């Protein structure tokens, strides 16, 4: 299980390929990649702030919880902070499991927890100012299914 919190860009293709190649015995690999949407050209950049120390700790706790709930062979979380341009990859989750239901469920679980329980805050920088992204009720609601 690897957790990387970094400002550097990452290559989702290379990460996905390396993850699948290392997942010996897995029949199913699921990846999720979050990209900066350009909101129809209105977004100049996205700035992501995080809480160094707590971020890694919180993500490791989620990944460990996922490993206990589902039969996973491996899991990967990469999450960037700093300034990102539209189209750039913000983060990525990958899960490997013998069967597809476990890989899908664990990836969705990790995403739901990352959204609302990992200490990241997004700020959208537009032509006419900057605004912190508000947390969505639906994201909080998504946690209740687990």
């Amino acid at each position: 299980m690897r957790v990387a919190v970094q400002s550097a860009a990452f290559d989702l293709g290379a990460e996905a390929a390396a993850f699948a190649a290392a997942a010996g015995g897995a029949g199913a690999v699921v990846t999720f990649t979050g990209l900066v949407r350009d909101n129809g050209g209105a977004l100049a950049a996205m700035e992501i702030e995080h809480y160094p120390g707590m971020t890694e700790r919180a993500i490791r706790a989620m990944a460990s919880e996922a490993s206990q709930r589902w039969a996973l062979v491996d899991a990967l979380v990469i999450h960037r902070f700093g300034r990102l341009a539209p189209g750039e990859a913000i983060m990525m989750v990958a899960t490997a499991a013998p069967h597809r239901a476990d890989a899908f469920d664990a990836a969705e679980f990790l995403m739901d927890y990352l959204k609302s329980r990992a200490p990241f805050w997004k700020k959208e920088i537009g032509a006419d100012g900057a605004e912190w992204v508000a947390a969505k009720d639906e994201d909080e609601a998504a946690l209740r299914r687990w």
Partner: protein
Amino acid sequence: MIDVLYFAWVRERIGLPRERIETAAPTVAALVEELKAREERYALAFADLASLRVALDQELSSFDAPLAGVREVAFFPPMTGG
């Protein structure tokens, strides 16, 4: 002495990312009251606790949690990761 950290718009409203505070506040809520009494910018940042979250020593906690033994308190809005 306790380290107090602020993130996102809480940091922006208060105007600094962290500070060391001498306090005898028994709970997070009591610490918040002390801070609000200090200056307008703290009162503004802590005006609506329902829109804030708190972590004690890097674990999510609640405003009625005791502060005894805690070294680091962080205040921030609901997270928006992923």
